[in-house]
């Protein structure tokens, strides 16, 4: 049986852990994600996106750290607030805009939308909506790599504190530990599951205390502190890669948007908005950059402009692409063509 460790990483760093390049790199992905999502929101408001828009505002520091340490052959299972991590892992912006705008050329070809996208061939899993379900899928992908004799890979799966209450999450965590796969699970407690506050979600003192019960190593982190996120999540990735037991990181933030853009989040209390975890991680990181003089104002403005330009281009491209059409669609849900059950 395994030894388990459980420590709380120190957060609220006043300094940035080196290397500074890593911090800046991460910041730039966060900026890109924020810029993209703000643009998606305005498209949605303008009626140009059908269905929902779900953004990761306030969670970019956690998310970018999830994507940043992964290598091409690692498995990434992002969820709905992981634009920063997806981008850092290598998802092209065009995948996002094509999917949101329903282009036939996107990875989902109009068959699925918004955050339900992925490129499993490139190790970026396409989430199903049912929360918790992707943990065991990630475990299976890692087992396959082990079966095939690959080395040095890990998997990272994201979850919200709400999703941690699903049975599927529990079974996935436990089976990961039984199989001793190199898995990092990053749980973001953004204090709400849709409209439901923590006190109707769980009743333990600290969600990181679940780690020991699975035989995971558990760590907490202030999700508004980019440097801490890079440290703690980066450390978990490193330990998983080094063959330690599966790792759980629990990050604390506040969701700085509605659940989706249809939701005005009027149920979020004023009190909670005053909590330290309610800070905007992007602003905090930017302030740190300014305070430590890591970038000059022009470069920052340049990065912003560049992000906007990339986003605009991805949107413009996707908008030019043709939508799918019902009568031209290949209505076949199985890969084995001769086994299609044709009837009405």
């Amino acid at each position, binding site marked *: 049986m395994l030894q388990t460790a459980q420590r709380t990483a120190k957060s609220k760093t006043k300094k940035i852990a080196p290397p500074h390049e890593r911090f800046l790199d991460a910041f730039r992905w966060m900026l890109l994600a924020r810029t993209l999502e703000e643009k998606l929101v305005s498209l949605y408001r303008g009626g140009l996106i*059908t*269905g*929902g828009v779900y953004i990761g505002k306030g969670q970019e520091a956690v998310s970018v750290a999830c994507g940043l340490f992964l290598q091409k052959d690692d498995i990434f299972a992002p969820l709905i607030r992981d634009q920063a991590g997806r981008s850092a892992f290598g998802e092209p912006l065009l995948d996002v805009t094509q999917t949101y705008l*329903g282009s036939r050329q996107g990875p*989902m070809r*109009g*068959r*699925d*939308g*918004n955050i*339900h996208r992925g490129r499993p061939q490139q190790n970026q899993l396409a989430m*199903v*909506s*049912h*929360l918790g379900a992707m943990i065991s899928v990630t475990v299976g992908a890692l087992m396959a790599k082990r079966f095939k004799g690959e080395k040095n890979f890990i998997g990272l799966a994201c979850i919200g504190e*709400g*999703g941690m*209450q*699903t*049975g*599927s999450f529990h079974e996935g965590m436990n089976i990961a530990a039984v199989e001793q796969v190199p898995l990092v699970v990053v749980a973001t407690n953004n204090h709400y*599951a*849709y*409209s*439901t*506050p923590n006190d*109707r*979600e*769980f009743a333990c003192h600290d969600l990181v205390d679940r780690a020991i019960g699975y035989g995971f190593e558990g760590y907490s982190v202030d999700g508004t502190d980019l440097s801490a996120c890079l440290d703690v999540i980066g450390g978990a990735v490193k330990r998983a890669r080094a063959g330690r037991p599966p790792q759980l990181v629990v990050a604390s933030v506040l969701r700085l948007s509605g659940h989706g853009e249809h939701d005005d989040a*009027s*149920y979020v209390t004023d009190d909670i908005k005053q909590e330290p975890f309610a800070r905007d991680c992007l602003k905090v990181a930017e302030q740190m950059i300014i305070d430590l003089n890591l970038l000059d104002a022009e470069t920052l403005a340049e990065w912003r402009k560049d992000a906007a330009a990339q986003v605009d281009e991805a949107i413009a491209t996707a908008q030019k692409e043709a*939508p*799918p*059409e*019902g*009568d031209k*669609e290949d*209505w*076949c*849900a199985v890969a084995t063509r001769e086994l299609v*059950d044709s*009837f*009405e």
Partner: protein
Amino acid sequence: MSITYLEAIREAQAKLLRDDERVFIYGQDVGGTFGGAFKATKGLAKEFPGRVLNTPISEDAIVGTAIGAAMQGMRPIVEMQFADFSSIALNQILNNAGTHYWRTNVPVPITVRLPSGGTKGSGPFHSQSMESIYAHYPGLIVMTPATVEDAYTMLIDAVAIDDPVIYCEHKYLYYHLKADKLPTEGLPMGRARIARQGRDLTIVTYSAMLHEAIAVAEQLASEGFEIEVVDLRSVKPLDTNTVLASVARTGRLLCVGESFPWGGATAEVISRVAAEGFHLLDAAPQRLNAKDTPIPYHPNLWSTHRPNAKEIARKARALLRE
């Protein structure tokens, strides 16, 4: 004054909470100031403190809890956030609620509300119609109201009866459908309704497809055909007699449903009519369902995936020509 399908569901729950202290509402986001992903419980938590409760994201435990409470004399109403997520509660529904009365003689009066069916842009996991899965298993009542009036009275019926009820409410109808006022009484439970009279063809359907069928019937009336439309109201029990009586009048049957094509409600209707009303049929009975793929996100695909008025009309015309 006018009232929507969604408001009727809210009003029914308000009335139930008011009239029966055994009733409580349990589900994700139903409580607080929020009142549910679709606002079907808006205001109820405030009006009925402690009786409209938010839950963790735990569909299995939500239904399990409702089952336990029902055994002890309560009348819980469970709201699934989307019908699609009831897949997580399926074991509790089929194997626990569905078997309990038969096994122990103790009924389990829970009502599980499933916001069902497709809407634009909802995709594979927020669009499903699961009535056929629940109806396949014994021990459950499966309601599929298609009108504002039925949404109201059938929900009240659902809570009144001793059996577990799967109440499939269609999201597409939430805002689209309006009535002038709420009825004080509905049709008897388990009874289908002749939604429109005709003599040339019977269309049997339920839930949102009723309105497509009626639109087609009106369109075809201008072409000289009188189409009778039967609204099943509940797919289990399924009112075979009303269906057979209609087919006896028209000699032709088209059955339309929004769920996946293999098995399910339309197959069940056709099998019953073929077995028990074969001699009534002047032509081969036909059905129309959604396509046999996941439900697509893109509106262009979705409108082709689900049965639509154009397709129904095409099928109906072909049948009328036979």
